[in-house]
Every structure is written in C-alpha cells, then in structure tokens.
C-alpha cells in the first residue's frame, strides 16, 4: 500500500476526515483560480500589470482610470464569473447526489429553463431590464424547483428517478414556453431577451455581485454540513434512514439550497450550460472521491467558468462568444469524452 488515502485530524473529542487526493486537487484548483483571476484582471483594452493590481489593492492606485477599470468593471465581472461558476458547481454536486445520476444537474432537469422563463416573461411581457430581470429569473427558477419537487413527491417522499423525469418533463414544457415568448414578443425586446438567454458576464456590476456572493457565503456552510448525511443517502434511503439520517428533511433542504444557488447564478449571468453538470463529475473523478465533493465541485465550477471567460476574451480572429456558448461547447465535448471513456473502459453499456 502507498500512503493512506485519508488524513485524519484529531484534537480532543474532535476529528476531521480529509481525503488526501481531493485535498491536493482543491489546492491546485485554488492556485489555478488565483492565477486565472489575476490574468482576468489584467486582460482588456487598458493593459494593467500585476504590479498595478497590487497598488490598487493596497490603496495606491497609479491613476483614477486604472482604479476605475479594475474596481468597477473587471472586478465585478470576475466576481460574477467565479461566483456563478462556484454556485453552479456546488448546486450540481448536490443535484447529482440527490438524483444519483451524473446527468442530474439544474440545467438538465429544468430549473435553468424556469429561470429563463421568469426572465423572459419580465423582459418581453413587462419590458423589464437590469436588476429586475435578476429577480424575475430568481422567481422563475424557484417556482420551477418547488413545482418539480411537489410533482415528483409521492407518499411524502421524492425518489431520485421521479425527480429527474419530472424535471425533464417540466423543463421541456418551459423550453417550449420560452421559444413561444421569443416568437410572440416585440422584435427589439426579443433580441435583448435572446442576449440574456445566451448567457454572459459582460457588463456586470456590483449589483450583480452582491446577491450572488451573499447567497454563496450564507449557503456554503450549511450545505457543507448537509453533504455528509446526503452522501449517506447515496447508499439508498433504506440504509441511510436507519443509520440516523432524516432522509426527507435532508433532501428537501439541500434541494432548496442547491436551487437557490442555481437560481442566483442563472439570474446573474443568464443560462450557463454544463458547468453544473461537469464540475462535480470532474472533481469526483480527478479526486477519486466516493461521494460528491462539494468544495471540489465549487472550485472546479469557478475554474471552468473563469477558463471559459478567459477563452472568450483571448480567442483569436475576434471570435468573441457569449460565455454560455463556450461552456456549452466545452461541456458537450466533456460529455462525449465521459461517455466514450466509460465505454472504452467498461465495454458497451
């Protein structure tokens, strides 16, 4: 045997179990995030070096222009990018654990479509803009989530299978509604709605940052605590229940937390494809973790989003694309790789 897979920290009656490989993965991801963030702050029409960033942080900005570009334009954009990625990654980890399905992510099971419906109704129906769109998307996602949960409920419990199927059904209906809204809406409004639908972090300001980050900070703690009982439920409710996990209560609150995270992310950026799907899977596979690693998925989500954003900004030939499309392309390739990889390893399934 090589080194033990777990590190156990003990102090008096307290003990913490850390998976060695996952710990290293998280440290690496965090490092990448720091490097990526610095790069993101430097990139743009106004070249800003690391030294100037440091000067702004320490309060000795070299010029008003540099300070303005950094704190009012690039930093909010960066924080929205990272925050949305983190929220989607965490949300995806919870959804995949609850649904026991690597495809069970908020975008696949209809919540993202619900957020879009909310936003579209507001943009097209009421000509709304700005912060109100965020609220409308939030409301749409939450209503969809609660609706899917209630529809999937049977005898006071929600089976993973029913949740995924109900979500797919509701998502299909909402996608149709979204298309209908776009067709029926006024052309100019429809174009602005379409821009929102593409998913973007362009022009995000502190008004987008605050709700997202406050939600993240408030929810991550309780959700980390909830991840342990939720991981127990991967063995089936019949085993987790008698082991002392209040199965339905854990599922309900974790679902709600994941839903709020997904709604916050989607309302801040528009629909972002595949981050919620891919981040938990990548974290789990690379970390060889037996359960969905919440911190790993969160960090991976942030890295994926940031990577996609950097890609859109440094792409050659003016190939600038909305970030939602980039993650869609990356995610699609990832999914094919995942399925093909599985097939190669395990034979056809």
């Amino acid at each position, binding site marked *: *045997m090589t080194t033990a897979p777990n590190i156990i920290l003990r102090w008096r009656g307290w003990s913490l179990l850390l998976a060695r490989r996952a710990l290293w993965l998280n440290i690496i991801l965090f490092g990448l995030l720091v490097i990526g963030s610095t790069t993101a702050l430097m990139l743009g029409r106004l070249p800003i070096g690391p030294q100037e960033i440091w000067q702004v942080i320490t309060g000795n900005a070299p010029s008003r222009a540099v300070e303005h570009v950094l704190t009012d334009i690039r930093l909010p954009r960066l924080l929205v990018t990272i925050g949305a990625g983190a929220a989607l990654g965490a949300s995806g980890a919870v959804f995949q654990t609850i649904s026991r399905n690597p495809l069970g992510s908020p975008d696949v099971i209809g919540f993202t479509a619900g957020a879009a419906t909310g936003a579209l109704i507001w943009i097209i129906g009421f000509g709304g803009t700005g912060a109100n769109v965020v609220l409308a998307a939030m409301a749409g996602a939450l209503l969809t989530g609660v609706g899917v949960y209630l529809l999937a409920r*049977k005898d006071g419990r929600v089976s993973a299978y029913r949740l995924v199927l109900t979500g797919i059904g509701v998502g299909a209906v909402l996608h149709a509604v979204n298309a209908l809204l776009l067709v029926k809406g006024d052309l100019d409004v429809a174009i602005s709605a379409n821009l929102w639908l593409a998913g973007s972090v362009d022009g995000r300001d502190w008004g987008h940052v605050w709700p997202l980050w406050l939600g993240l900070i408030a929810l991550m703690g309780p959700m980390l605590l909830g991840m342990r009982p939720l991981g127990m439920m991967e063995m089936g409710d019949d*085993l987790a229940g008698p082991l002392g996990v209040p199965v339905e209560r854990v599922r309900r609150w974790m679902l709600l937390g994941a839903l709020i995270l997904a709604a916050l992310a989607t309302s801040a950026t528009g629909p972002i494809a595949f981050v919620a799907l891919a981040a938990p899977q990548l974290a789990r596979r690379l970390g060889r973790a037996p359960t969905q690693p919440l911190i790993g998925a969160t960090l991976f989500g942030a890295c994926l989003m940031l990577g996609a954003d950097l890609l859109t900004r440094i792409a050659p030939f003016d190939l600038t694309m909305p970030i939602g499309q980039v993650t869609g392309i990356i995610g699609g390739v990832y999914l094919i790789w995942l399925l093909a990889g599985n097939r190669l390893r395990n034979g056809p399934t």
Partner: protein
Amino acid sequence: MPLIVRSPNYYPNPLPVIRQSEATLNAISRSHNAPNQQPITKTPRLQAQGLSLSYAGKTVSADISMGVEEGKFSVIIGPNGCGKSTLLRGLCNLLPPSAGQVLLDGHDIERLPPRKLAQEIGLLPQSAQAPPGITVVDLVARGRYPHQGPFRQQSAEDERIVSMAMDAAGVADLAHHDVEALSGGQRQRVWIALVLAQETPILLLDEPTTYLDIAHQLELLSLLRQLNRERGRTIVAVLHDLNQACRYADHLVVMIAGKIVAEGTPKALMTPDLLQQVFGLDGIIIDDPISHTPMIVPR
C-alpha cells in the same frame, strides 16, 4: 433411501403445543404458545402497539402488537408478500406507522431523534447501493454515522470498531478493495460489517442470507447467533429457509397477510398443520439430527 419417519406425529420431544383446532388462522393466537418454554426474563425494549403500516395508502399490516424478545434471536417467517419486510421497516421507523406506534423503552420511536434511534436499532435492508468507487473500509466506516457528528468524523474508537466489525464479518482482508469489484457474497458480508459497526443493541436484518451460497449462509447465521449469545444483541431477521429459521432462531414469528398469527420457539411452533396453513405446504417435521431442532421435509 427409505424415510425413517413417516408419521407427522413424530417428535423427539413431546411438543405440539399450539392448539390448531380453530378454523381460521387468525385464531392461532400467541397466547397459546409454549407454556413450557423458558420464561421471558427481560421485558421487551422494542414493542409495537396496534401498529398499522401502509404504502401509498394501501395497508400492508394492520394492528400488529408484538414485543421483540429481548436478548433473543428472533426470526420472522411467512409466505412472500405477507409483510415481513414491512414489519421490520416499521420497527425502525423507516416506514412511519399509519396507525399505532412503536415504542423503544416506552418512548415513541417517531419522536426520538434519528441519530439516537440509530444508536439503538440497526437495519440491514434488502437493497443497498454502494457509492461507486468506495473501498470496503470506507463503506463499513459509514456504519459509525450515528455515533459521529459534523466535527467528530472519525475517532480512534470508530476505527477500532470498524476493524472489529470487518473481522467479525470476515471482510478484513478486503478492507482496501473496491466494493464494486467484490462478488455478491462478499458484498453482502460488507453490508453486514456495516451494520455491525453501527453497534446497536437491537439488530434487524431483512433476508441477510440472500446472495450467499449455502456455506456462507450458515456462516452468517452462526455469526449472528454468536453476536446474540456472546454480545447479548437482540436480533430479528427475516429468513426464507424454514430449516435455517428453526435451527438458529430462539423465537419464531409467523406472519400471514400482514398479521402475526403465531409466535414461539421453533419446537413449539413447527407442526405440519402450521406448514399447511401458512405456506400451503404438505410436509412432515422431523428432528434435525445435528441441531435437534425441527426440520421440514416437504412431501
């Protein structure tokens, strides 16, 4: 080979205690059983009172009252679909009652905190899924969950108990193997190790011998009996094999159509009449030459 025993009235000991003259099975009352068996020394910690259990509004078991024999190895038998598993699920509050209640030391288990209940009663369900990629030792360690907390994730005591449980279930050699790569029988023993690691005074097992070959079935039942005898654990298992049930159980609970129709020691209970009425099986009962417990021979 000539049958040594042809008469259904053959018993090594004069035993047929249950009076079965009543026309209906419901009349086979527990009050009739075994006046000559050893007296119950301890009052049951776990009791069902007027317990009704239902799925999707459909009642599976109605109005069950029973006490789990303290410190005994009880086995629930009965035909398929008679509510054996449902009763086990009810006894550990996995399936909350639609009427009545289950009491642990006089307290309604529905009101007990789940972790507290899980420190007292363990259940090995029929279906359990190992998370992909988990090792045996990590899976067995999950049995310690009710004794742990958010910031008490793995104490030295937890580790000691986990390794003892793996030893007892015979999976210590497999500790660092991937559970997915194990055979069905090995996997079943890993699940057994998990519920052993839970260290509950009361242990419920739903068909624990499924997936095991005959040698491992007997090994597992011997292990359960050993836990019962040496550690004083109260055990309730659902078993399908009547001969195994008779051989290992101190106490048999017979169920038909959601009701308990008879309870008692195997010797007191097992009669051709019971076989006929409960399982619709025409057979005779002989003395098991090894364990001297009732042995069913179908005709």
